[in-house]
């Protein structure tokens, strides 16, 4: 087929294109992924025992704010990385801000913690389970977002997959905050972040293989 013929053919397929499909899909799938995570979480590990009283606790909202901020950063990054040649700093800035905030809070709390209790503040009671629960809860959302990414045009597959992981991981960590009754900022800074990082790594590896077009 000569190139002119191809162009004529493509012009025949040139119907109007609905705008805004990328942010809409990403938002819908991220929300859906979080919903699935919730549906899995409740029968599996349940809400935290002090729910809903925990809603009055500021540390509950501190956790929510951190994980939701990560999720929002993932959304901004994924939305840009789904497009060829798109630049955007907002996602990176938000990610850095979240990391700095939780780091500062954790350092501040540790500074006020007596030496004997530092171990508990950092390790809590569930350090070995927390990251894995977050990863497990993130997987359905991650799969859905990667599947959507294939229909877009990411030119940096590994980075796009990582952003998908950040989005799904942030959402799952937010849902996990409804189960987990650890309140210390050092714990959240280390173990929630590790769970999100595991999801980012999974997304990056999957992205490098799957996101071809």
């Amino acid at each position: 087929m000569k190139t002119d013929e191809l162009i004529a053919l493509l012009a025949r397929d040139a119907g109007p294109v609905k705008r805004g499909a990328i942010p809409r899909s990403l938002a819908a799938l991220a929300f859906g992924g979080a919903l699935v995570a919730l549906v899995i979480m409740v029968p599996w590990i349940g809400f935290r025992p002090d729910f809903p009283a925990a809603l009055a606790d500021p540390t509950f909202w501190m956790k929510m704010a951190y994980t939701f901020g990560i999720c929002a950063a993932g959304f901004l990054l994924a939305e840009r990385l789904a497009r060829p040649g798109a630049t955007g700093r907002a996602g990176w800035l938000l990610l850095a801000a979240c990391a700095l905030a939780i780091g500062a809070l954790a350092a501040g709390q540790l500074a006020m913690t007596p030496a004997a209790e530092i171990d508990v503040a950092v390790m809590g009671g569930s350090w070995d389970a927390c990251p894995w629960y977050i990863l497990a809860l993130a997987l359905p959302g991650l799969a859905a977002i990667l599947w959507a990414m294939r229909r877009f045009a990411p030119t940096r597959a590994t980075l796009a997959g990582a952003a998908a992981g950040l989005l799904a991981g942030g959402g799952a960590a937010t849902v996990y905050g409804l189960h987990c009754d650890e309140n210390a900022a050092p714990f959240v800074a280390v173990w929630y972040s590790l769970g999100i990082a595991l999801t980012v790594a999974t997304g990056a590896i999957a992205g490098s293989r799957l996101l071809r077009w």
Partner: protein
Amino acid sequence: MASDIETRLKTLMLRGLGGDAAAHAELLGALTVYLRSFFARKMGRSAADLEDLVQESLLAVHLKRDTWDASQPFTAWAFAIARYKLIDWFRRNRIRRTEPIDDASDLFASEDSTELSARQDLGKLMGHLPPKQRALLEDVKLAGLSHAEAARKAGMTEGAVKVSIHRSLQVLMKRVRDEN
């Protein structure tokens, strides 16, 4: 002038996205000329795959139109696609090259319109489509039937014809990538 090119192509792209088929065709025609020159410089002027890569890039620009954000430069978007396809070609042909950090001005530098014949015949790849989809594509492409005429001939609605053609193009893009 780089900004003139950006203005012209961006206008055509916006009109094409609004459903103006003639603007879309003009955009693809303009891109073809830049793509040929760009790939010829990067792949070697007599590369057998040159026209194939041009066609593959045009298919990608068309099928992934909805990934362009109107608040970003069109030339940067188009260049990213061309570069992506070029790097993919290097990888498939196991050519080790550290791509220098180009920017969009590298694609829109010159216009060279010598067309070589495509090595991989897109027309032949159409043979892999199911008969009904292939017949529709042939009617619209070769016989120049309108969507309405092709729909009448096939006993389908016009909307169904459009969907079928769009899907066939997506299959073709996958095939082109897998064959190369």
